């Protein structure tokens, strides 16, 4: 295997880890509440701007911006739940799409009005530059994001499977009425889930900001990939999102390298449609 190919693969996996990172919040909400958050990409966008503001105001890198973005986004998530999502969940599925899509436009263009249309970017050396290991170039910011992706995935997975909070949340997602009879307040659990999911999204956004451009419409670019990642992994499956993210990153990189950049998304969508066909519950979803 040529060094370039190794580089392509390593790069693809790192990219995939990042896809997984910004998809984990989406899959949590999707799986727990059967709500598609069309504003997810714009949550990432807001977190990226927070990272930028932290840098400009405090001169801080991810050490400062990640916690700040996580807390801010968790707050936004909880607010969104109580002010909007809780109500649209009672309506038909289409009301959820309507509500979250409207929220997406609101966030995107409020940011547009506040920050302008210009592209922004954080300095490249904010997270320690680039290293060469065995001839493979690794960008520190991407490696950090990749590691955090694994940590967040593991954390969310443990939270859902090993803690009482997690089992309460799962109980609500299985049967809200039954959970209520057991003394669990579904709306609190769902609000917490929104907070956690949005918080994870905040972490993702703050980290992506260290190597990606920032603009009000960047969420659009990221959102579709997140949807595909979540559906491929299986709605609600956090490990599924990780596997799917890695897979998509790898396939994109390899197909862009071998077939050409304009075809990489075509390959991903075809794969996605095939998976839906043969395994509609996604790679790791429950049937």
């Amino acid at each position, binding site marked *: 295997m040529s060094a370039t190919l190794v580089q392509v693969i390593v790069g693809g996996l790192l990219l995939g880890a990042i896809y997984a990172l910004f998809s984990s919040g989406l899959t949590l909400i999707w799986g727990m509440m059967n709500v598609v958050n069309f504003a997810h990409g714009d949550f990432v966008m807001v977190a990226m701007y927070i990272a930028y503001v932290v840098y400009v105001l405090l001169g801080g890198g991810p050490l400062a911006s990640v916690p700040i973005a996580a807390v801010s986004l968790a707050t936004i998530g909880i607010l969104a739940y109580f002010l909007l999502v809780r109500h649209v969940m009672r309506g038909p*599925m289409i009301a959820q799409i309507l509500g979250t899509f409207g929220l997406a436009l609101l966030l995107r263009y409020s940011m547009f009005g506040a920050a302008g249309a210009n592209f922004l970017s954080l300095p490249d050396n904010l997270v320690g530059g680039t290293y060469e290991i065995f001839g493979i170039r690794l960008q520190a910011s991407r490696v950090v994001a990749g590691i955090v992706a694994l940590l967040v995935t593991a954390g969310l997975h443990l939270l859902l499977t090993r803690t009482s909070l997690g089992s309460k949340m799962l109980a609500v997602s299985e049967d809200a009425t039954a959970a209520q009879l057991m003394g669990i307040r579904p709306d609190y659990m769902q609000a917490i889930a929104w907070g956690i999911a949005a918080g994870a999204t905040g972490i993702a956004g703050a980290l992506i900001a260290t190597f990606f451009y920032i603009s009000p419409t960047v969420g659009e670019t990221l959102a579709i990939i997140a949807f595909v990642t979540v559906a491929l992994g299986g709605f609600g499956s956090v490990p599924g999102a990780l596997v799917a993210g890695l897979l998509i990153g790898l396939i994109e990189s390899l197909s862009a390298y071998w077939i050409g950049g304009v075809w990489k998304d075509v390959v991903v969508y075809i794969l996605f449609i095939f998976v839906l066909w043969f395994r509609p519950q996604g790679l790791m979803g429950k049937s």
Partner: protein
Amino acid sequence: MKKLLWPGITAVLLLAYPLVFTTPFQQRLGALVLLYAIAASAWNIVGGYAGQISVGHVVFFGCGAYASLALFTHTGLPPVLGMPLGIAAAVGIAAIIGTPTLRLSGHYFSMATIAVAELARLVTTNTEFLGAAVGLSGPTVPRTWLDLSFISSVPYYYLFLAVLVITLGITWWMERSRIGFYLRAIRDSEKAARSLGARAPRVKLIAYLLSAGLTSVAGSLYALMFQFVDPESGLGILISVKMLIMAALGGAGLLFGPLVGAAILVPLEEISNSLLGGRGAGLTFVLYGAIIVLIARFRPDGILGLFQSARKAPEKHDA
């Protein structure tokens, strides 16, 4: 007779609109309302009545728009003749993608349709025959009346109105026939509907094909009016979302829901863009987003849902 009162008044208003509002922009606004109402009504058949939330309907819209302009570009024939080709292509594609995807439920169906639409956009962007990224243009300078290229929007207005009436007529007929009942039953519980003998796969497919064909007509009409289509404007995800939003806003699964949704959103978007867009602060979309959020929050069944539920007795029975 009383039943026909409000549709009658609506019909008179629709017929009279271009005569009352005579500036070109107002007339175009009217035509656009009708155009989007056609697309949203077509979406409503499968998304509203059958409850299969397609977020990839733009594929069929693109079939119509591309068929019309590709026919003109490659043969020089008037774009309107591409309409049947577009319908055929849309129905064909719907049959191919509908069979596997309609088996999927809920969000999986939505995701599959998004993927198909994005696939179509990407492939078209790289297909020379369809104008690739540059897009296709129509006969900007009309050669004969068959090119249906008018300076005024009034001919378009009445053309669109006629097509809308046909679309709503088909929907009305469907709503009252067995297939309409089956679709609504499938939306509520596919399992139960099948146990009662509804051939769910076939019924859903019929609705999907019908919806695809009508959406394609909307695409052809779009091409006639704007005489230009490129991958973003003919196959972009935003158009799918617009159809969905208009239907949902007015009331998904209700005959006049999409028309009401279009009659609110199209003027809202065009007028707020006219008044605010030039400032360049994205205010149009802030407003647009806020209204959508408010409707979803307070009227999740759409604006007409209010009238729908008011009609039926709300009190609980033997609960």
